[in-house]
């Protein structure tokens, strides 16, 4: 088996065996979204106005929550040494870790987002652009998150540092993701925003592994 596929299979198996991780992320996502109607009141008009923002922000925070396990466990138990010594470049290994991370967090978030949209009374006509936006934007979030996760290795409070590093970097997907939902309800259409989200992911695909691998080498030294 190619090392790339082998590493993805390993991470998926690990995530499946420790099912709590996926459940935690989804649970956080659902709870965070449900809190908003309680906080800002149940008026459908108001909720509908902020629905896209609520779902995107909650998805973003849920993704951050799961980032610390991307490299930290391998760093602590020596698995990262073996990944660094594998037959593939470290950049490719980062891509494999990022892919497994997306499959176990990003994809589940995409799948439950239409259901959550009901809680905040999002216009059903906007559902496709919400789900499609998340589908295009969450891979970029996993990849950008990998940079922050690699940079925070060895820090005293890695979780806090990681959050501070990554949240500003998540602004572009947040902006275009919510704009896509807004635009899909107007004559403008969501196409332009969705294309920008896709562009973010396509740019992160080669660049994030380069940056994260450089940070991992620093951490290993």
């Amino acid at each position, binding site marked *: *088996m*190619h*090392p790339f*596929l*082998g*590493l993805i*299979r*390993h991470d998926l*198996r*690990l995530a499946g*065996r*420790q099912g709590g991780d996926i459940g935690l992320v989804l649970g956080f996502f659902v709870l965070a979204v449900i809190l908003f109607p309680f906080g800002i009141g149940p008026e459908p008009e108001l909720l509908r106005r902020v629905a896209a923002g609520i779902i995107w922000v909650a998805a973003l925070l849920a993704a951050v929550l799961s980032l610390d396990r991307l490299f930290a*466990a*391998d760093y*602590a*138990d*020596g*698995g*990262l*040494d*073996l*990944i*660094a*010594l*594998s*037959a*593939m*470049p470290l950049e490719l290994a980062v891509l494999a870790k990022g892919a497994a991370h997306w499959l176990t967090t990003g994809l589940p978030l995409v799948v439950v987002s239409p259901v959550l949209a009901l809680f905040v009374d999002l216009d059903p006509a906007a559902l496709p652009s919400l789900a499609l936006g998340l589908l295009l934007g969450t891979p970029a979030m996993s990849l950008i998150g990998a940079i922050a996760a690699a940079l925070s290795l060895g820090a005293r409070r890695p979780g806090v540092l990681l959050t501070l590093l990554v949240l500003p970097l998540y602004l572009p997907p947040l902006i275009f993701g919510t704009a896509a939902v807004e635009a899909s309800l107007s004559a403008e259409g969501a196409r332009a925003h969705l294309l920008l989200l896709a562009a973010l992911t396509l740019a992160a695909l080669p660049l994030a592994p380069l940056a994260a691998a450089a940070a991992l080498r620093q951490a*290993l*030294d």
Partner: protein
Amino acid sequence: MSPFPETAELVGENLACRRGERLVFAGLDCRLPAGSALVLTGPNGSGKSSLLRLLATLLVPAAGRLVWDGAPVARDPAGHRGAVHYVGHLDGVKPALTPREMLGLWAALRGVRRPATDAALASFGLERVADWPCRWLSAGQRKRLALARLIAAPAPVWLLDEPGAALDSDGEARLHAVIAAHRAAGGRIAVATHQPIAMPDATILALDDFAAPFGEPPVI
């Protein structure tokens, strides 16, 4: 058995290692010809583990270079990674997975299509626990599992950091047998150890001899 050149030699030339501000050792030469064993000795902190990580290219030497089969390792790092096995203090074993699954991952990472998983488990007596979650394994069994990856995927150079730690006498005997077989097949071994390891005609490398003078500013 292995696709690696039988006469290849791993040579470290004038190696120096720096950890933070401290120069751990400098001016160190070592060679690992086919069938050889190099035993690293020295007190704690003398740089045994650092030298092994350096030979594995996990650390970048502050000075000097590594040469494998006549060519500088820096020119073909991926080829060198394929030639070395590194077994350190940390074993990378995931408590939720089974020994068989861990060996499968380690072999896959090395690009091995048909890993000798069963032979690896058998050579360290892990058949009985092969499908248990690793969280049920004892420290000695985890060490055996980490060592079993030497067998699951072949590599001509083994770099072992305290391989005897946590092993019982049966485990040590198995380790010695595996090392002897590896050397007989032309393999090379560098091992850092405090325990006496029975290895005929092993070269002893005392890292103390290369310790950088204390207080002197590092000259690199």
